């Protein structure tokens, strides 16, 4: 084999390895790429071993939050009557929960229910106004459909699993996966800082981006399809079918939050606002006639900023500035 052919073969194998997503293995070696090393990565034995061995596994607690893919097991050491697990992914993810094994007594009152979203203190995210499904369809009960429907998929990057186990020794195992959501609509941010662009492409729906922190939001660009950027509306967004609103509140349900600001005209350039609430939401309402888009950044408000806002505020509503 000539040197040129050898180099071409190595390049080909390297490309195939990269396409299969195994490129990171090369970084682990001693900066030496050899045909034998590349071939070993493609061996069937290694490929069979990787998926199962590298699955992240851990036990669940009665109250838990899961943000990493893997297999999670809960085993009751005593009756557990009020338990819940929060699942969350990246903004562009939807959540898949698969029942791997379940050992519960459905007739004895045990249950495992998956909620399409988060619900706390009776408040839901997404709210009923923003979610495409009615409330009763957002609950999936393992005891009713678990056998015929072992995989439950969420509509956004958050989901919740409620369970009740009356007997010691009852258990269940679920596999949590994140799937790509090409058109994210309703999102909960995992972090108090970040940036996001919300696009609603000619769909008649409402979308909310929730940040469960007091933050400063800086909107960089707002593009509403309707041509009302020549003058500002005197009556705010009344009568407008396409607009963006900033909401603040101490719960999850956007329909119960306080409106902090309404934006119903397109603009470029920074427009910032501080919201000192437990939950800060950027919500877009779309009529479905236009392509609407909003880009924004957010950062956590510091303790001193919150104190200053508190000192300047005369209202009990969440602090704003």
């Amino acid at each position, binding site marked *: 084999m000539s040197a040129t052919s050898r180099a071409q073969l190595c390049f080909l194998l390297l490309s195939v390895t990269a396409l299969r997503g195994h490129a990171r293995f090369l970084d682990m070696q001693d900066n030496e790429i050899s045909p034998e090393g590349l071939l070993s990565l493609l061996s069937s034995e290694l490929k069979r071993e990787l998926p199962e061995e590298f699955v992240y596994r851990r036990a669940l607690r009665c*109250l838990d939050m899961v*943000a*990493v893919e893997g297999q999670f097991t809960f085993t009751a050491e005593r009756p557990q009557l009020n338990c819940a697990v*929060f699942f969350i992914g990246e903004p562009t993810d939807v959540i898949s929960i698969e029942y791997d094994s379940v050992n519960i007594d459905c007739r004895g009152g045990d249950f495992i229910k998956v909620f399409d979203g988060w*619900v*706390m203190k*009776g408040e839901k995210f997404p709210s009923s106004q923003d979610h495409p499904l009615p409330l*009763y369809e957002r*609950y999936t009960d393992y005891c009713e459909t678990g056998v015929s429907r072992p995989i439950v998929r969420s509509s956004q990057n958050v989901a919740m699993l409620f369970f009740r186990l009356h007997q010691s020794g009852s258990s269940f195992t679920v596999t949590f996966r994140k799937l790509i959501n090409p058109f994210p609509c309703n999102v909960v941010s995992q972090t108090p800082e970040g940036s996001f662009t919300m696009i609603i492409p000619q769909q008649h729906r409402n979308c909310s981006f929730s940040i*469960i922190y007091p933050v400063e939001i800086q909107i960089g660009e707002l593009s509403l399809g309707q041509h009302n950027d020549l003058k500002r509306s005197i009556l705010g967004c009344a009568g407008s079918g396409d607009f963006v609103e900033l909401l603040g509140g101490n719960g999850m349900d956007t329909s119960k939050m306080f409106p902090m600001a309404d934006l119903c005209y397109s603009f470029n350039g920074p427009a910032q606002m501080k919201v000192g609430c437990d939950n800060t939401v950027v919500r877009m309402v779309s009529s479905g006639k236009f392509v609407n888009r909003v880009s924004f950044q957010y950062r956590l408000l510091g303790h001193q900023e919150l104190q200053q806002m508190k000192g300047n505020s005369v209202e009990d509503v969440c602090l704003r500035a």
Partner: protein
Amino acid sequence: MWLARTLLALALLCAPVSSLCLPTYDPEPNFLCNNEVFSEANDKRQPTNSLLDSVNLLFKSAHALSSEEPRERRTTPASKYRYLSQTQLRSKLYRNSAKSDRRSQVTLSLDVPTNIMNILFNIAKAKNLRAKADDNARLLAQIGKRK
């Protein structure tokens, strides 16, 4: 019921002071006053003019009246009694079951303050980092094994 109300009213009237409990010429002297109630009060040597004692006496009188009910129930046919008991029991269970089903279906929620989510986020982040570290360690071990 008329008899029970009459006895309750008389007990209320007689509660303040024992001296108002006058003997009558009725052949059944216990009909107007329940001596057992007053005898218990006297045994405790408590003043009978206080409001608390009046409440206690009223309670004891009511209890004495309720103790008469078993005698009335004994006159009820046994089969009817069992039938009523079973009906009430079944209804109660059904109502609770239905209520539980409805509550679990539409109002299942977690009573946790919203701001606790920050703590859960941090815990999840730490677990995520730990998971990635474990994953990398397994990768290194696997590569070492292959060599």
